[in-house]
């Protein structure tokens, strides 16, 4: 039993790592294509059919490029920073149920690496640690733009963590559990049971905070190309820079799984349709990340902090109060 469990867990970890590393690569392709179509361009076309092999070309380039460590950087921290981003993104995935449980060759598989009973808290905490990557990279780089990016990273982190925590508190009070499986079962009754109908405010707040968490466009201020070059990534090259990218895209995918699981019914009753539904919802939220990037301008750091502290946090607190009164 013990050995079987161990082998199963290791296999799950490897599958999650491989699938989402590959998806992160494909995510860059989707992003370029979606952005291109929204801006009336073609996007990558030359490598493979419809430019599909562009991902492989990028991979070859990143892997074979020389790994430059500039002279004045703090080398150990500089080297470890990209690993922090990528590793924490995948560690957070340990508590996400990607699919309902299914039986294959008479063996029941739970597609979740570790079903801990505080899933959502763990996921948000570990994803938050992911912002240490840009922070450390920026501070160790000995580059002024990188340092500005690190300072912004710290400000963003402190601002959005409050909103995520408070917005998620109201649904947690309703469900009475922190496990994503319990969240899913609470909403398993069908379309009418989704938490979004009872907690629309929390849903919108959490969605906004998700953009800050993943550092996507309206809040892409830690690596704004037109202000601070590539921010924390300015001094990086080769696969170390690639690891930042993998971490960012993996985080986007995991966030796109977590939002439907929390608010939009997850995989429902666990049928095949429910599983496909979860994948469809995930695809929509991932697409929305790209859509926003094409359609919206970036905000300034002070605007983000103003939004988080003076607008979103009071709304979240009020939402908790109202929920508590209704629940009583």
């Amino acid at each position, binding site marked *: 039993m013990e050995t079987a469990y161990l082998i199963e867990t290791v296999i799950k970890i490897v599958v999650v790592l491989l699938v989402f590393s590959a998806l992160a690569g494909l995510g860059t392709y989707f992003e370029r294509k979606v952005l291109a179509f929204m801006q009336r361009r073609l996007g990558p076309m030359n490598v493979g059919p419809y430019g599909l092999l562009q991902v492989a070309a990028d991979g070859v380039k990143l892997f074979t490029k020389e790994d430059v460590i500039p002279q004045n950087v703090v080398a150990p*921290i500089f080297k*470890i920073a990209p690993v922090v981003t990528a590793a924490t993104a995948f560690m957070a995935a340990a508590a996400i149920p990607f699919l309902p449980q299914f039986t294959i060759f008479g063996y029941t598989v739970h597609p979740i690496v570790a079903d801990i*009973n505080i899933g959502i*808290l763990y996921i948000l905490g570990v994803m938050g640690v992911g912002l240490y990557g840009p922070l450390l990279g920026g501070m160790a780089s000995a580059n002024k733009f990188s340092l500005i990016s690190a300072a912004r990273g*710290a400000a963003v982190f402190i601002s959005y963590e409050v909103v995520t925590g408070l917005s998620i508190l109201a649904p947690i009070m309703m469900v009475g559990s922190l496990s994503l499986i319990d969240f899913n079962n609470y909403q398993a009754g069908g379309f009418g049971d989704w938490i979004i109908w009872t907690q629309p405010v929390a849903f919108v707040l959490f969605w906004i905070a998700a953009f800050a968490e993943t550092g996507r466009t309206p809040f892409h201020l830690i690596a704004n190309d037109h202000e601070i070059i590539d921010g924390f990534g300015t001094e990086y090259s080769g696969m170390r820079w690639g690891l930042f990218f993998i971490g960012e895209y993996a985080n986007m995918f995991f966030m796109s799984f977590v939002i439907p699981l929390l608010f939009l019914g997850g995989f429902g009753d666990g049928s095949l349709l429910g599983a496909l539904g979860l994948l469809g919802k995930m695809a929509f939220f991932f697409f929305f990340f790209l859509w926003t990037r094409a359609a919206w301008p970036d905000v300034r750091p002070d605007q983000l902090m103003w939004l988080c502290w003076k607008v979103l946090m009071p709304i979240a607190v009020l939402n908790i109060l109202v929920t508590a009164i209704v629940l009583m």
Partner: protein
Amino acid sequence: MFEAIAFYLFSFLTIAMFYITVTTSQALYALSALAAGMIFISAFFFILGADFLGAVQIVVYSGAVMALYAFGMMFFDTTRDVKEKKGNKYLITGLATLAAILVVVIVSAPLIGENISAYYPMTEGAGNTQEIGMVLFTKYLVPFELAAVMLLVAMISGIVLAGKKMDLSLTLMSDREIIEMREEKNKKVLL
């Protein structure tokens, strides 16, 4: 067996990280080692089955150390060594060792004196989070509320310290003073 391996691995890592934090003269090394050590400590909670506390350890300390980074960024050039002013080396080492031993004795003496035992029985069917809630809102209600009040006081004083003209109170001022203040403000805007 896995528990033992995990325990020794993480205790080694934690101690190594905090050793780096104390000994290095590089602000960036010290802060990063501190953050890593804090996160490794959460592993002990997970090993003991206290999942909630483990996750809270990660959430709280990653945020707290992040604030320390912000201060480090403001005060030091984090890519250079900080020149420390060192006094009597032996005195510092001796006092620090003595303090550490004292803390260990103070905490562990009652444990050895009367065999350690759990105060509260496990509640059937209640999870980790519910158990903490039950203890927090029964036995430890007063310390919990006191901590909450203290945090509120800290927050309000922080706002007062950081905000502009927070030392003025409109209710205590006469109408004339308020009008004067407004006119002054308008003048500044016009200038």
